[in-house]
């Protein structure tokens, strides 16, 4: 279970950091890596029935639905629109990471 938590958190954080760096300095590879890591985090969260986990899945899906169009729009030439979509995805990613921290605190308290 711990390994799964490491994997999920890694992809969540990775998505957040690359998303943030893309907003500051738009770069095609960074955008694709953001999409890839975000989708991986969503897939890893699929099937989790607990309340916080479902909230995280929902937040991840929101980020995906911002980032996938952002990728296409970026390569069609509208960089500013793509950056604004990525900013929307960033909000969802921040919520995902916050929820992940809350989940970690709760599991720590119940284990100790």
């Amino acid at each position, binding site marked *: 279970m711990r390994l799964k938590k490491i994997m999920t958190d890694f992809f969540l954080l990775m998505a957040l950091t690359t998303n943030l760096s893309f907003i500051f300095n738009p770069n*095609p*590879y960074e*955008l*694709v*890596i953001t999409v*890839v890591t975000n*989708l*991986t985090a969503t*897939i*890893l969260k*699929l*099937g*989790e*029935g607990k309340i916080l986990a*479902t909230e995280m899945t929902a937040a991840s899906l929101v980020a995906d639905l911002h980032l996938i169009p952002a*990728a*296409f729009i*970026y*390569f*069609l030439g509208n960089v500013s629109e793509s950056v604004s979509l990525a900013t929307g995805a960033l909000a969802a990613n921040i919520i995902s990471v916050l929820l992940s921290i809350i989940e970690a605190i*709760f599991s720590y*308290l*119940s284990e*100790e």
Partner: protein
Amino acid sequence: MPALSRSKKLKTIRKKLRLRRRGEKTLLALYQGRLIESLKELRIPLLLLHLSLSVGTLGYMILSGGNFIDAIYMTVITIGTIGFGEIAKGTDTPEGRIFTTFLALMGIGVFTTSVTIVVRVFLLGDVITLLKYIKVLSDIEKLKNHAIICGYNKTSAWLVEALRKRRIEFVVIDSREEALKYMQLHNIKYFLTEEPYKKTALNAAGISRARYLIANMEDEAKNIAVIVTARLLEPSREKLFIYSTAPTDGTAQKLEELGANKVIVPDKLIANRVFSYMLHETGGFVSDLFDRIAYGEEAELEIVEIRVSERSSLAGKKLKDIDLRRVYGVTVIGIKRSEGSLELTVSGDTQIEEGDTLLLLGKPSDVKKATEFYREVLV
């Protein structure tokens, strides 16, 4: 010492954070949880498919100098076995061809396997069944004044037919495989494949909003369990009417003491019916008349019972005072007194008392108007 104080602190935080546990999970929540969990099966195939698409897209992007749209298109046509050719820039070079070869070797297998698993999970797996079940449970939540039939057998099938005629909604609960086939054959709209004596099953069938419960299990012990559980969930005999069957008078009495409103002994019922035909040799018209009225088969006539409660303004009045015949066109054909006697020779001077049950006879529409008025306004 520091370790001890840390553990104390943690205990305090845990106490503060501890929320009161909710009661038993509802069946709907349980199935929704199962549906979400069934999506776990998709994780590995989706991850593999995602990995192939990501590796392919990033690889072709590097080869084509950062063209995302060409790269994803090239990846999809390669692993999807479409193979339109080397469309993206840089794919017709030796490096590009080596990359495409390895991507095709890895991706085609992953693509076909993943698609097969995804289709299997959605079409052949539990997902569709769970979705159907969730739909049924959500629909049941909207039912009111319905009947709950626990156990599906030939008697239940006849009962279902009668309920359909009267447009009374019903939910059938039975966990047996053969019952499930039988229910599907009879096109039962709302059914739960659960043990009927479980609280979760009865709650899911909407016992708090139901008007009737029929405990019709093959096993007597199960009937007892159903009646007891139902009465625990809905103690009022006036709000939920429980009916059951029993093999002997003794068992019937026990079931009534446990909470059933009325228990029928089938063998005794058949014997009495045969005897009533023997008494009315001409053709059994009289024997069948009340049944036909009660079952709604006599379209022009209906007979209903109205109980006079303690708070009712009907108590203490004479039949001529309420004048049902003139106002609603229905006749009081008898009064069942609270001590159990049946008075059939009623007149305008007959007095209504607390706890009496009035037997009203008339056209279905008139009877409905009269009962609605007395139930809502006076009784």
